[in-house]
């Protein structure tokens, strides 16, 4: 579904990603782990379509087609979703209205009928119950005054509502306590089906106890330095990120 081929990016002349190769198929859950500054966030932002990142080499193909020329809204409508690490607060934009507008934009693109306020409310409340979010959150402005955990849950709520085919979770576990983590993980696991792909970007191994990945990649210095199965994450946790320096110099 997603194919990243020799991707090099830079910001302000400084190279960040230095030749990323990654292939994600439907039904797979990939974990991308790495220390701070390794380029994890950049990878997310480039796939999501954030401006300011210059692609100096390489390609990103989504469902076989070039992704990088598309604006963010088109990528979302084609089925890509990013759960952000630091979701922005948007005072004055009602949370419910925002989600309904987004959902309908995506539905329209897929040739589906738009949901009216009534049907939307029934739908979203169902998902909120599963994730343990109070319906009052619908009346508030997007992420405004939400705690870290509530923001992350709001991201997962949007994911389950918008039904993307490729979901990228950018450090969804950061700032969450164990209970919130479990709920978020349950939300993601309920979402796993053979036609969907998920990329979990994380600094710590802990999340992967709950969202078990099929493949683990280790990102360091803008490159994927090692790829393996779940055990790789455990090994990384045990040895620490310094172990990567050995791996990096081995390339």
């Amino acid at each position: 579904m997603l194919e990243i081929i020799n991707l090099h990016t830079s910001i302000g002349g400084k190279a960040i990603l230095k030749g990323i190769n990654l292939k994600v198929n439907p039904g797979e859950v990939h974990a991308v782990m790495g220390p701070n500054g390794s380029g994890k966030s950049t990878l997310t932002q480039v796939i999501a379509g954030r401006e300011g990142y210059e692609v100096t080499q390489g390609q990103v193909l989504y469902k076989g087609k070039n992704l990088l020329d598309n604006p963010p809204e088109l990528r979302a409508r084609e089925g890509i979703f990013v759960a952000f690490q630091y979701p922005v607060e948007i005072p004055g934009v009602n949370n419910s209205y925002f989600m309904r507008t987004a959902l309908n934009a995506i539905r329209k693109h897929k040739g589906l009928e738009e949901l009216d306020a009534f049907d939307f409310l029934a739908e979203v409340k169902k998902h909120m119950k599963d994730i343990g979010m109070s319906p009052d959150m619908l009346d508030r402005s997007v992420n405004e005054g939400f705690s870290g955990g509530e923001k992350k849950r709001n991201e997962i709520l949007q994911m389950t509502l918008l039904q993307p085919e490729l979901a990228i979770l950018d450090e969804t576990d950061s700032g969450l306590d164990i209970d919130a983590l479990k709920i978020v993980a349950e939300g993601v696991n309920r979402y796993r089906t053979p036609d969907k792909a998920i990329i979990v970007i994380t600094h710590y191994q802990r999340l992967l106890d709950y969202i078990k990945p099929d493949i683990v990649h280790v990102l360091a210095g803008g490159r994927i330095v090692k790829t393996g199965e779940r055990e790789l994450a455990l090994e990384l946790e045990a040895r620490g990120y310094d172990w990567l320096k050995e791996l990096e110099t081995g390339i």
Partner: protein
Amino acid sequence: MFESTGTNAVTALTAGLKSLNRNRRHTMPTWLTAIRDEGSKLFEKAGLPTRRHEEWKYTDLSALNHKSFSVPTPNASVEFSGPSDLLPYLLSQQEAFVRLVLVDGCYSAQLSTVNNLPGGVEVKSLGQVLAHDQDRLGPLLSRHLANYAMPGENSFVALNNAYLEDGAFVYVPAGVKLNMPVHLVYLSTSHQSQLTAVHHPRNLVIVEKDAQLTLIEDYIGVAGSNYFNNTVSEILLGEGADVDHYKFQRESEDAYHIATIQVQQEKNSRFSSQNLSFGSQLTRNDINSQLSGPGAQCQMNGLSMIRGSQHVDNHTLIHHAYPDCTSTQLYHNIMDENARGVFNGKIYVEPEAQKTDSQQTNRTLMLSRHARMDTKPQLEIFADDVKCSHGATVGRIDDDALYYLRSRGVSAGQARKMLTQAFGQRMTNLFRLDSIKEAIDLFIADRLEEWHLLQSENN
């Protein structure tokens, strides 16, 4: 740049005044004649303010020199038969309001619906009262009318005094809490191509001790009309009185709108003002409140939403002369294309006004690189035990917020509209009256829809 003192405009604006006065002298009480004469003298002496005047530094009136003005006459250019004819111009189809309507500066009995007022409450045409109710209301009027807005300090007040004839008179007796809003509508229709019609609506609002009033001043211009509205409102709040005031300006695109609202607040009174500007090519609002007793509260909020080469200048002044008073000001501006905005928020705190709590915020959202905002807070504080703050921001649509919405599938144009609407709603959220808030939010959404369409044509 030094401009002329607008002698052309002064002459043009006062032309015909002498003959008008000659015709009316016998019907006017002497106290009113005195006000008009003084106004006329002061205006001719002071002329129009130029950009050398500190208070008019950012607002250029020189275009008024090139206009030919027509003396106000009571003939409307549009025929109306009944109140339902007014509905297409109104924001919300609320029938339950008490409504006083003036068309082109003159009271229209056919369009007004002033029924079922509680005992003692007056909502009348000022002109009608001056002409027919002198015995009963003369003393009250002569005591208060033109006693608060100072013609010596503001030439437009002087000019309005010179032509003082009609507008609204609203009186709420002590203890009466009027739960139906009083809606004052000023509809302008003049379509003369060579002449600019000038109107000088004058309002006097008296709310006695512990009384309550919701008042809406609604200025509406028929599309394509060409006129200059110079309006003055004096609003007096007795001890413990509560006035919730709304001013909506939807003048025609070619119109000029200059307004002075002078408020006097006795102790423990509360005045909240929502001042919204959408139309007119040049708008100037001076909204001033004198806090004349301890414990008074004053909230002045505003929103302007302009584009093209529209210009909106809001000057506010809250004068804290007694202790324990609180005031807040929140003014938001949404500006597109080459629009220009000005905000000057003044707070004066006298030495006796201890425990004053005053907050001022001005925020501007620029939707175009060519718009310009001049914002100047002015705090003169002479008491030492006070809490005063001010802040101003001028910025574009938040990129992070825009990106977030787009990352969920919302188109860039739709996302910009949502964020602009949100910016406007941070101000309308302060409205005390929900029904009016909904009507205005809808109006803003429709307007954004229009603007959005224009934008996508140009892209």
